[in-house]
């Protein structure tokens, strides 16, 4: 029983950064922008988040630093892809290359340092309930925040006028522009939200997952978050399922390695990446009738006047 509890707890922890980053990217892509720089924004968020927390001793300051860093990175992307109408795929790639270098520079000062990780919720008696107590009421704040955030995004997308307008920009920017909506400004807000989420997701890693910073610690999670939005068909509900499934794959391979199954560890470690490929293939195949992607996703928009 304790093993199952431990596994579920670690799955939740491993899924949270994926869910946070994918939530941001979902909003960005729903507005019609494909930002492939998630990995770059995450790793800079991780470096700045750790730096902030290490300097001030406050997890919240660290998380805010991560969000600000991610947002600044995303503004760089917005300036290029929206302001100068540069190809979004190429811009996103350069954001990732740039971010990996930048995070190394920022993080060089505190590699090897440690912080006290984010505290876990503790409600007397309730958290002590066997099995479900710690899982439901004993997580760190980020886990609850990520779930609240995706619920808020769902509400925003489907229950508010602003969400409807944003989706319109993502499906047909020409019509949205003709109706008088400021397509580029709306997209910029969506990109910034994506950046803040990616930065927070990156900051989660050194603030709660492992209490130290190592260069390249995001290890492709930003790319998996991108795949998750495809997996989820750009729908918030499926995104939660997808994120927890991927978290489970990550953790189960770790436990399998720990249990000493006679399979080389490298093969187990490659499972999340292989799972991503397989899932992308299966989902794209199931969807041959018509794409559920935002219709204007990744296309350049230059308003004519």
């Amino acid at each position, binding site marked *: 029983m304790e093993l199952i509890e431990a596994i579920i707890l670690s799955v939740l922890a491993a899924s949270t950064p994926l869910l946070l980053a994918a939530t941001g990217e979902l909003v960005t892509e729903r507005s019609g922008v494909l930002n492939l720089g998630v990995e770059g924004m995450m790793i800079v968020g991780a470096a700045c988040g750790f730096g902030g927390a290490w300097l001030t001793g406050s997890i919240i300051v660290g998380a805010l630093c991560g969000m600000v860093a991610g947002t600044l990175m995303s503004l760089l992307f917005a300036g290029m892809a929206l302001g*100068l109408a540069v190809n979004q795929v190429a811009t996103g790639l350069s954001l990732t290359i740039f971010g990996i270098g930048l995070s190394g520079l920022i993080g060089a000062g505190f590699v090897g340092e440690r912080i006290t990780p984010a505290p876990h919720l503790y409600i007397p008696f309730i958290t002590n309930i066997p099995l479900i107590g710690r899982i439901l009421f004993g997580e760190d704040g980020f886990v609850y925040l990520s779930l609240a955030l995706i619920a808020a995004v769902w509400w925003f997308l489907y229950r508010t006028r602003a969400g409807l307008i944003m989706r319109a920009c993502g499906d047909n920017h020409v019509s949205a522009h003709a109706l008088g909506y400021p397509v580029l400004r709306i997209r910029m807000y969506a990109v910034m939200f994506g950046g803040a989420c990616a930065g927070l997701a990156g900051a989660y890693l050194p603030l709660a997952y492992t209490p130290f910073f190592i260069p390249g610690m995001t290890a492709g999670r930003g790319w998996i978050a991108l795949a998750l939005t495809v997996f989820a068909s750009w729908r918030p509900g499926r995104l939660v399922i997808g994120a927890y499934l991927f978290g489970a794959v990550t953790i189960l391979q770790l436990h399998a390695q720990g249990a000493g199954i006679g399979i080389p560890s490298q093969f187990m470690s490659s499972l999340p990446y292989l799972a991503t490929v397989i899932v992308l293939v299966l989902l*794209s195949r199931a969807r041959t009738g018509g794409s559920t992607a935002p219709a204007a996703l990744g296309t350049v928009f230059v308003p004519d006047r």
Partner: protein
Amino acid sequence: MQLVLEKRAERSRTVALISPLIAIGLTIVTMTILFAVMGKNPILALYVYFIAPLADGYSLQEIAVKATPLVMIAIGLSLCYLANAWNIGAEGQFLMGAVAGSWIAVKTQGTEAGHWVLPAMLLLGAIAGALYALIPAICKVRFGASEILTSLMLVYVADLLLDYLVRGPWRDPQGFNFPTTAEFDPVATVPTLIEGGRLHLGSILALIVVAAGAVLLGRTIKGFEIRVVGAAPRAARFGGFNANQLILLTFAISGALSGLAGIIEVAGPVGHLQPGISPGYGFTAIIVAFLGRLNPVGILIAGLFLALTFIGGEQAQIAMKIPLDVTKVFQGVLLFYVLACDSLILYRFRIIFSAPQVARGTH
């Protein structure tokens, strides 16, 4: 104040030529500021980065050695990008080529195998790279899965496979438990061009690849099809060009060149298979491809330039204690500026000072 883009009637040829130079200029300005912020002497840092490596013969050879994989990979990538197929997993194809070619070297180690070994290694490396690149291409063509994500995921898988092999079955028994194969036999090694030097046969192969790329794109129907499919997909469909077939073809060529670059790197400058054989060649080659304007000759120049930054970065680390990550920042910044300047080819930038409300009133 507002920045407005106006579409040009046709692509500006002048801007197309000078935009990489503007980009390099802006990058150098940015790096000067970065060095100053880091408390390093910017003039000295720029000298160590860009001028000092050109001053001695050893560094010049080293630049050619580093440019070899960059140029080879970037030529293949440029074909993909021209056809609007986004292969960003060249790093994985590079590693798979290295692994597959090394297999022959490891298996023939210490035997009487003759001079067929190296050609066989190069061939197998290219085939393995091509096959590995065909996985995302087939997933794209057959199932519609995003080739961007699948090709990138396979990089991690290739990295882990290489790691497994050199820590497990292929580890050098006399290697003090270091994760590496034994040094390859002379017949499994790419010969150097100068006695005792670093420059090797691979650099000649890279030049041949550049020439072949130029002929393919400029002088053949296939090259024309590749460019049309990317630039005008509708026109290509009316012309009866098979876009899917071109995706498969460009991925296969690109994978083969990456794989070839991988095995050349292992059998040449490195001399054995080990983790970390690539300082991100597959990703830097993306920058090379764009900086070179997806043009073979441009790629050759861009490859040499980025190789210079690798060498300059290493020397700056030794001489001025500037971290190696600065090189990555530099490369990212450069790609940003290249892409931004490319926007000038298609658009004219105009800054409008009047408030938007007033502008609307006059219409």
